[in-house]
């Protein structure tokens, strides 16, 4: 296991390095004027001589490999630069917003896992029934629904029409997130988490249902039925353990979707997390912040995929006991 983790770590490091190179190359090729990107409005008031001096100072006229090594060097010691939009170090912005987003993503993740799993089991156990058809239809429609639109519909129904949910933000207006009570945080979390979880629910439900059907049609299920076991008995004693694994694996592998979905959910609900920061960085040409977020999200996805792999290896006795990849 340790050897596996070390290899994985190396793999991740190489991936990150490659991503760093790719991002750097992309940004250098872009038509964005770096001075304008870094200084914003102030740049328009500068004379060409002032701009040339700054370009020199920042080493913008150095050859690309030199610029890259300087930048990479700074990254390695943790200097991700300063975000132009927030006037704070990039790592600080990411750090502050990470917790806000994490609460959202974890809630959505748990919701989608639990609800999806439950629906999938129900549908699989009652194959062909009205309930099964309903659940399948629901999942089927949801799978192609844009999450952000669903969020908007929820907003219209629950916040504007019924007035039971707040219309935005992670905490009440004027109250810093760190100072809000748990109750307030949960209240503001409810709709965005629901929105974010909905698509995940569809996928998990369908996947779980499929797996359960496989179990119910397997030999040992047949054997158990011959001995008088009911469907629910089979599900409880044999099914759950076997389908839990694929479901959990799928959940961990969905970190990528989670992050992407969070970007949209935060946009609809003005939720001040990493997703909102990514959009702002992209729209307002905040290069340091954008790069920082790109690398961070890659780490996030990588951790998710690795966890999925680890869980898979740990739980599947064949792999754990049998050894070998």
């Amino acid at each position, binding site marked *: 296991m340790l050897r596996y983790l070390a290899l994985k770590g190396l793999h991740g490091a190489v991936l990150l390095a490659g991503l760093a190179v790719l991002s750097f190359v992309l940004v250098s090729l872009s038509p964005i004027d770096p001075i*304008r990107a870094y200084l914003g*409005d*102030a740049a*328009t*008031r500068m004379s060409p001589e002032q701009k040339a001096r700054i370009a020199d100072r920042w080493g913008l006229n150095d050859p690309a490999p030199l610029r890259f090594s300087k930048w990479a060097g700074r990254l390695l010691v943790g200097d991700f630069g300063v975000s132009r939009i*927030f*006037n*704070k170090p990039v790592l600080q912005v990411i750090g502050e917003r990470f917790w806000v987003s994490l609460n959202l993503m974890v809630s959505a993740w748990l919701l989608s896992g639990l609800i999806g799993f439950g629906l999938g089991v129900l549908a699989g156990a009652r194959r062909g029934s009205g309930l099964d058809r309903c659940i399948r*239809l629901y999942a*089927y*429609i949801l799978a192609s629904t844009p999450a952000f639109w669903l969020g908007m519909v929820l907003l*219209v*129904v629950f*916040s*504007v*029409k*019924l*007035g*039971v949910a*707040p*219309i*935005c*933000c992670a905490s*009440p*207006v*004027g109250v*810093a997130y760190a100072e809000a009570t748990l109750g307030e945080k949960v209240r503001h979390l409810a709709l965005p988490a629901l929105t974010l979880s909905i698509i995940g629910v569809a996928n998990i439900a369908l996947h779980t249902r499929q797996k359960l059907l496989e179990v119910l049609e397997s030999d040992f299920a047949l054997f158990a039925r011959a001995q008088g076991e009911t469907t629910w008995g089979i599900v409880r004693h044999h099914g759950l353990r076997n389908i839990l694994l694929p479901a959990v694996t799928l959940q961990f592998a969905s970190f990528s979707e989670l992050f992407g979905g969070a970007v949209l959910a935060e946009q609809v609900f*003005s939720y001040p997390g990493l997703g909102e920061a990514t959009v702002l960085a992209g729209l307002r040409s905040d290069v340091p912040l954008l790069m920082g977020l790109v690398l961070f999200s890659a780490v996030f996805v990588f951790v998710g995929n690795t966890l999925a792999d680890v869980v898979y290896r740990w739980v599947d006795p064949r792999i754990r006991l049998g050894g070998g990849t």
Partner: protein
Amino acid sequence: MPRKSTLSTVAVLVCLLACSKEPPPDGGRQPAHQERKSVSCEEVVVVEAEPAEGFDPLLGWGSYGNPLIQSTLLQRDADMRLVGDLAESWSLSEDRLTWHIRIRPGARFSDGTPVTARDVAFTFNRAALAGGKTDVTVLEKAVPTCPYEVELRLKKPQITFVNRLVTLGIVPEQAYGETYGRNPIGSGPYRLVQWDEGRQAILEANPLYYGPRPGIRRVVLLYLKEDTAFAAAKASSVHVTRVPQILARQKIPGMAVRSIPSVDNRGICFPVLPAGAVQLAEGYPVGNDVTSHLSIRRAINYAIDRKALVDGVLEGYGSAAYGPVSRLPWDEPQGAIPDGDPEEARKILAEDGWQDLDGDGIVEKGGLEARITLLYPTDDAVRQALALAVADQVRRIGIEMVVTARSWDDLYRLMYAHPVLFGFGSLDQTEMHNLYYGKRQGDRVHNPGFYRNEKVDRYLEQAMTAKTEEDAIAFWRKAQWDGETGYSARGDAAWAWLVNVDHVYFVDDRLDLGRPRIEQHGSSITANLPEWRWKEGTCSATSP
């Protein structure tokens, strides 16, 4: 089959929403038990626009309203008359080149240091270097002649310089530096206590202020987006917030809609020269072959129905604008034209030889089609709405306007060759002067159309060098229309001004705002913040 289920589900969903209730004009119910929260007499919460570069007057803070944290030499009272603030007395020399200011002794900055003439001189001299929003470029030098007396020497007479005395906040020479914007020290009625960037700033009454104490001791300025601000107002979390016109018809129990008249305007600037007539150093394209025709510009002005724009886009919260200074004493009403007249517009075009020969609905002249690109800055919904509505009005007379959104970066490049929907509006005539003065041709957002009319230039110069404001007003008006020519729609039609946009706010019923000042482009209702107070018996005396 799946498609049917999808369709029927969607249909059911839509029905549910449609049948649930008529979209209420009051923007959704308030749960019955939720009343306005009680307020403390000591605090008020206001939604404001965040100053991107901090609270630094030299970078533009407070240049339209009241800097609040700093004090200015002069102020305008509710009737627009000049009154002294930091200045005790002020006078202009005979040759109109030197202002003599005497400031009150005993004024102190919030850190305890006294305000002296050196600070005033420092502020003005620094402002002259900074350029940009403060525009004190006509100043040659500010010289402190005595501890509390200062001379402001101008390069040439400029009647509008007095406005700088009203809007430029005084900063301490000793404490000013690069980080001043984040730790501003001033001698104004308030001082900055806390600033959480992107979220809020908190002001408290300055105990060392020389003037009367503000009516409310503590002010929380929240930086929120439009719909968030509205939701916060509904939830009783803010007491004053500006709202876009589309939300003005909503109802919030306990709050009233206040529409403050303003000179904040929107208008379309036309390139007046033909393409390629002038070369710019940066290489940006200059001139537009279509809008360089006077007939086109005049026709557009006649075709636009400004009242429809005010009613339809601004929901009535505004007024028609025929020039940049509509509603002000120096506006020349004769410069306006009876608009909303497509017939007259078509006549003007026809008389100049514009005809639709190929039947595509767009007129041509000499092979040139009347097609132009109208640009507006992205993310501005009101300008987008105005641009689209104007384009449709103008299409009826055969001119095609292709409406496109662009970032400000792009606009700075393209504005010399394409019409742009700008927003201006100031009580300072310098702005009008800069928009039409020939020597300001191509000076960034001032006169990007390269407009120049020798007679107009002379009037503008005469206004600037006039002895008194009344004399100046006569010349300001002549520049718009003197009976034969002028920059207004009746004359050269260099612009198509559209509307004045009133600033609409939701204000808590219990709040007394005193007499709000007429607003300008970029200003807000907080200009008279020290005059606000909670009405008798509505607030509790406890600290927040």
